[in-house]
């Protein structure tokens, strides 16, 4: 199994179908529970709370009856090309794993300078402003044993539930398999989403659903033109949502041109754009 990984043939990523997302927030809760994300009694200070997976509410800005509201679930994008946070880290506490495509964070090495937070355009990195998980209140019993809780003063981020990959690999090894199957390694957010809006898998494996979905003309990425090459993709058949995925100068955005494909795929879905 180690030999297979040495060639860097895995590239994990996800596709989030915004049209399916209801904004229920289950992904946020599942992520926080799975990854021992610190929770304080008062979570109202949104500039300082930790939400590896965060929902951004968006609207098309129109009046009723044309008003539409949707949500952008935003985990770490696990940028594939020169991640902005990785090269700036002073203590080499974060790195892009070329074997899995996962951008990791070493909490015990992070010195908390927060340069990575300044460099990340997605706001996907979070600093631990407080000491949490008091030992004497029994909260440690709720922790996921495979995930280390973070100390005060370090930066943390979404790891694509790396512990789940480790678990799946261990299982495959025990069963004498060289590779893990699709669905064996899924992030907590993808697993928990009641609308099944999140698909997770290996972008390099043509058999995996994600690698098919990313070829869809309605699939796009956040801030693609900056050149970070995110491995988190979004999917929506609504133009106003796709337009919100990046910055465009007036007249620059062109709606998806592959109309015949789109018509065929979405003709059964009522009440959508003018396709």
């Amino acid at each position, binding site marked *: 199994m180690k030999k297979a990984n040495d060639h860097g043939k895995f590239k994990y990523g996800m596709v989030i179908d915004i049209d399916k997302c209801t904004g229920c927030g289950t992904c946020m809760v599942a992520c926080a529970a799975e990854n021992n994300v610190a929770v304080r009694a008062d979570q109202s200070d949104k*500039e300082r709370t930790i939400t590896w997976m965060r929902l951004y509410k968006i609207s098309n800005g129109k009046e009723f009856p044309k008003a539409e509201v949707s949500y952008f679930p935003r985990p770490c994008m696990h940028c594939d090309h020169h991640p*902005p946070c990785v090269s700036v880290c*002073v203590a080499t506490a974060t790195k892009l794993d070329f074997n899995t495509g996962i951008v990791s964070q070493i909490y015990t090495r992070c010195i908390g300078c927060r340069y990575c937070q300044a460099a990340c355009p997605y706001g996907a990195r979070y600093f631990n402003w407080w000491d949490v998980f008091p030992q004497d209140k029994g909260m440690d019993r709720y922790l996921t044993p495979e995930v280390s809780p973070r100390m005060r003063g370090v930066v943390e981020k979404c790891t694509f539930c790396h512990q789940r990959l480790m678990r799946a690999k261990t299982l495959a090894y025990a069963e004498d398999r060289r590779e893990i199957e699709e669905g064996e390694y899924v992030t907590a957010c993808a697993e928990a989403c009641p609308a099944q809006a999140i698909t997770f898998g290996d972008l390099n494996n043509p058999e995996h659903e994600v690698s098919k979905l990313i070829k869809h003309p309605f699939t796009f990425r956040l*801030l693609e033109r900056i050149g970070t090459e995110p491995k988190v993709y979004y999917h929506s058949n609504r133009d106003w949502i796709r337009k*919100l995925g990046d910055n465009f100068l007036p007249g620059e955005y062109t709606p998806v041109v592959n109309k015949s494909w789109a018509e065929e795929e979405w003709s059964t879905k009522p009440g959508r754009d003018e396709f």
Partner: protein
Amino acid sequence: MDSPLLPHGVKRCSTWAFFFWTLPWLALLAWGGLSAFLCLWKGLNQTNMSNIFAFALWIVFDLAIIALGAGAFFTGFLTYVMGQKELKNIIKPAVIIGFICYSGAMAMLGIDIGQPIRGWFIFWHANIHSMLVEVSFCITCYLMVLAIEFIPIILENRKLEEIKELRIFGHNLHEIMAVFAATGTFLSFFHQGSLGGMFGVMYARPFAAREGFYIWPWTFFLFVLSAIAVGPCFTILCTKLTEFFTRKKLVPDSAIQLLAKISAWLLSLYMVLKIFDYLGWMYGIVPRSGLTFESFFREGPYGVYLIVAEMVFCGILPAIILMTPKARQNQGLLIIACLLNCTGIVLNRFLFIIVTLAIPVMPFDRFWGYLPTWQEWGIGMAVVGYGFLVFSAAYRYLPIFPKERELNPITE
């Protein structure tokens, strides 16, 4: 009371007057001490920094005082390497100001990082690709160089000079000062530059990102240039402030005018390059990211007025004043020009730090604003108090102005 410690042949205020003079600065230090204690004990939640404003007041202070402290290395370079003998009259205060600025910045950085005990990881687990590593290495080394440059000045104290070994040591150190001046110049070039590089390389933040030469974004060179343009002006300001409080002329006008003239040329060159930089950025990186210049200031407390102030009122205006011989010979205009120059560079750092972070990159995110807490101000002000204390003590006990006796003969 402390008269045996005072330099020969100069007049100093009474010990009590000096004691009362130090009280406000000691109060600032106490405020900073309490703030530092709270930040180290309770954590950085004592500040108003957030996941949006990961860098805030302290980093602005750091970058500002490191730029202002550039007078030390640059005056050293002009004096010892370029052989500008005239500047020997001002090199000692310049070195002390540099030492204060750099040591103050290092102390602030120690509190600013979330895990101060792991500070040494920067050196142990250094990521050579990070501009901040280059900054840390060069600042640490340069602070040592500054300390070495400061030692012979301290050894010139009347009581210390009586000890033969120390006198010889200080004298020999002084003889090889050109080596340290050159080393300091080399180190300073790289950390001033990499401080600018830190922001230029944030390619995913279009407000700060810049193109550049090889691995160095344009901000790298602009920060070096702006630092050496503002450093001499800050040295002049500190000297003038000392002259104001001591009611004495301490530095000959020729030295001040030479520094002002050098600063004028550098500032003018900086302004020309900075205008090209802004234009290149506005018509290059910004539209390529799908943005317009106006879109950066659509909302929020920070506006185009900051750039106008930086470039016109605190850039071109002082450059014109300092360039005109008649104007810079006028004391009032000289001080105003130096003040404006310093303000402009601080504004430039503010724009790169606070405004960069306040502007969202994702189209559906919002604009942010930030106000520091009293703990953040406390630590910033403590550096000011520390600076006044060290400089006052240096003025009182060390002969840092070689022409003081000549310019102020005691007539008794």
